[in-house]
């Protein structure tokens, strides 16, 4: 989508226009959902977190000074929610009340094609075992944003509040590590 149009829509949403908000949801729903899903492996939780991310974004949209930075901003909100999700999960597992999400494939009850979800889970496992297994926390984060969520280096730097050269360095190290460990990239 054109950057100027997106900025215009965001500005309209900042003014409280409902249609603009709906347009934003239509534009970013899929991307945010995927970002969350590939990080938490749970369909229902991904739905909840995506919804929460948009609600949080719209509640604070007036605070966003540069409308053109909406995409990295909403991505950072989603990433923070994922972090919180894992924090909660860690706390619950400490109390012995959490399900082991790693081993559970949650199905969307309304999904027509469950095999797609199984494939997605398999793909997530593949990513985990062949790519991000060898990477540090930061490298993992940047690699996922670049090659799973399809963000540009500029967008990643804005989302994570890091310089572009840092992002590039992390990417370089990630690819090198994956190659060294005999990952999928040869």
């Amino acid at each position, binding site marked *: 989508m054109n950057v100027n149009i997106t900025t215009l829509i965001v500005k309209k949403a900042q003014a409280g226009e*409902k249609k603009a*908000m*709906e347009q934003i*949801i239509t534009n970013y*729903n*899929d991307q945010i*959902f*995927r970002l969350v*899903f*590939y990080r938490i492996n749970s369909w229902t939780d991904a*739905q909840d977190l*995506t*919804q929460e991310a*948009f*609600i949080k974004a*719209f509640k604070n949209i007036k605070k966003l000074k540069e409308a053109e930075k909406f995409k990295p901003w909403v991505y950072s909100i989603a990433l923070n929610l994922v972090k919180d999700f894992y924090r909660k999960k860690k706390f619950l597992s400490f109390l012995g009340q959490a399900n082991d999400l790693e081993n559970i494939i949650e199905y*969307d009850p*309304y999904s027509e094609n469950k095999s*797609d*979800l199984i*494939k*997605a889970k398999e*793909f997530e496992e593949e*990513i985990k075992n062949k*790519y991000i297994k060898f990477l540090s926390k930061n490298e993992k984060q940047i690699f996922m944003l*670049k*090659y*799973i*969520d*399809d963000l540009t*280096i500029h967008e990643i730097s804005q989302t994570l509040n890091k310089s572009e050269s840092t992002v*590039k360095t992390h*990417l*370089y190290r990630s*690819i*090198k590590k994956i*190659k060294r460990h005999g990952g*999928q*990239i040869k």
Partner: protein
Amino acid sequence: MKNNDAHLTEDQIIVSVIDKNDLDTSTYQHLQDCSLCKKQNLELELRLNGLSKKAENLIKPPQLNIMSVFSEKKKCNTYKKPFIRLLLRPALSFAVIVLCALSIFYLLGSRQSIMQDSLTTGPLSTETLLTEIDSDLKFAETMDNLEDYALSGFITSSDDQNYNLDEFIEFVTLTSNETI
């Protein structure tokens, strides 16, 4: 890479995949010209970019109705005001009104009965007042006597049974050797 004929190293291929502009001019030029390096670059690029395409194709995210959540939330906010909440719940508001009415009636009724009592008795004459005071004083006197000589028939006063003051003090206080 100064020599244009030398192929790109593995590191340079990685750099070219991340951002071609980071390559120096000669390396960049070599990449443009050399089919082998170009192939390596493309292969790596395709493998990496293929991940996002695969991730995208595997999942069809559900369309969330987030705007409805917003309108619901707004409705919830109005419920927060207690007065409006009462108005919106007729049964509860009716009960509150009935309770208020009953308490007002009860308060008014009790006040009226006090007023009626004072009206029926009326003021007392001085003679009756004086006799009442006299009887009160006598009653107070007998009470004082009872306090002073209570159970006098059961108590015998003999000096033998009295403790000396020193003994008593010794009994109730600790000596220097004793500790608690």
